[in-house]
């Protein structure tokens, strides 16, 4: 009985969200630069219900702030053989990290690859702190990534796919348009050809990355863009690439170019 009641309530909420989403068809779009893959660039925020948007916009209610706060604590905690914390070198994150979240993945000369923000944080831990790298999707790495990217909230995504990064963006683009899995779909099948259309209860967005790490109701926690990639690939019955893999970093880089100019929203709230 209780179960049925809960189900009924859940369905009612679901319907209410669907109805309210329908009522708000006006979506903020920005104009892409010349030669861009999209004719309009739209944040995933615009496809969510009013309730979800309100939750994201309120720093007290936004569940993603748990990770922002944990990251802030870790920022000044010493770790590793060098006896340093992030703050030892970078001091006040609100200043030193003010635009970092807009430019990742970013080319790293030392490794000769573009690296994601998660990887950059771990490079600092290893090389400058003498500390163990954090595991992908672990609490501390999610917290630190969220905290650092949050410093750029409201600033436009400004990733560079020029110079040596160009071939990586090209590789990411190939992955974006590659059909995979038994359902034989590419990222573009949903997020380029069908954004704004409902796939069952869910409204397809452009699959932009400006809100990551993002708090998802489905996960009941914050998660990385690579975790999201993995989930999409599993849904279409494909073998996902590994989190932190070259493939996912290339895809992340290309995806970021599809969202140039969108404001960073970290921590965003999504379904």
């Amino acid at each position: 009985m209780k179960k049925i009641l809960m189900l009924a309530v859940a369905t009612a909420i679901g319907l209410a969200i669907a109805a309210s989403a329908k009522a708000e068809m006006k979506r903020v779009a920005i104009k892409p630069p010349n030669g861009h893959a999209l004719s309009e660039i739209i944040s995933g925020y615009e496809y969510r219900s009013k309730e979800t948007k309100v939750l994201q916009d309120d720093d007290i209610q936004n569940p993603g702030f748990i990770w922002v706060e944990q990251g802030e604590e870790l920022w000044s905690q010493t770790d590793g053989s060098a006896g340093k914390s992030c703050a030892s070198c970078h001091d006040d994150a609100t200043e030193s990290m003010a635009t970092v979240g807009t430019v990742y993945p970013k080319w790293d000369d030392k490794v000769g690859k573009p690296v994601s923000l998660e990887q950059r944080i771990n490079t600092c831990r290893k090389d400058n702190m003498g500390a163990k790298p954090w595991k992908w999707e672990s609490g501390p790495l999610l917290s630190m990534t969220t905290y650092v990217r949050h410093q750029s909230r409201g600033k436009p995504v400004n990733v560079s796919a020029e110079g040596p990064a160009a071939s990586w963006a090209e590789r990411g683009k190939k992955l974006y348009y590659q059909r995979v899995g038994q359902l034989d779909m590419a990222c573009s099948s949903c997020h380029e050809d069908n954004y704004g259309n409902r796939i069952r209860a869910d409204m397809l967005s452009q699959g932009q990355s400006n809100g990551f790490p993002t708090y998802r109701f489905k996960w009941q926690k914050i998660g990385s863009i690579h975790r999201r990639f993995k989930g999409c690939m599993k849904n279409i019955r494909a073998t996902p690439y590994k989190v932190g893999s070259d493939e996912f970093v290339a895809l992340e880089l290309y995806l970021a170019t599809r969202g140039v100019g969108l404001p960073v929203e970290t921590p965003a709230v999504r379904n």
Partner: protein
Amino acid sequence: MKLNATRLVTALAVAVGFALPVCAAPVAFEVIDKTIPKSLTMEAGDPGRGKKALLNRKQGNCLACHSSSALKDQPFHGEVGPSLDGVSGRWKEAELRMILVDSKVVFEDTIMPSFYIADGYTRIAKKFMGKTILTAQQVEDILAYLNQLK
């Protein structure tokens, strides 16, 4: 020769009334001018079972992308593909069978999955390797259901 044997086994299994597992190698079928005129199975399609397979999210999951007024009682309908209303008036059964078996033959570059094709995929998850999304009987059952959507 090998294909014929598969077909015989399938036919026998169906005749004896086994439910074939999804992993059965697909039966051979003949494509004529972007249609599949012959039924994939010996047993006639059952619209009741077809409706179930069409709705099941791990099988047809057709409402992910399509809508249907005959299924108004189902909560969420998709907007990615056209409505299935009157679909059997627009297409002959042999064409619908082709669309279900391998949508890409009829609609180039479509997002719609090929429901009865087992190979040719990229990075397919191990669990689904060599398998089709629907069984031959499920294809025929869904066809029988679509036939009711006049």
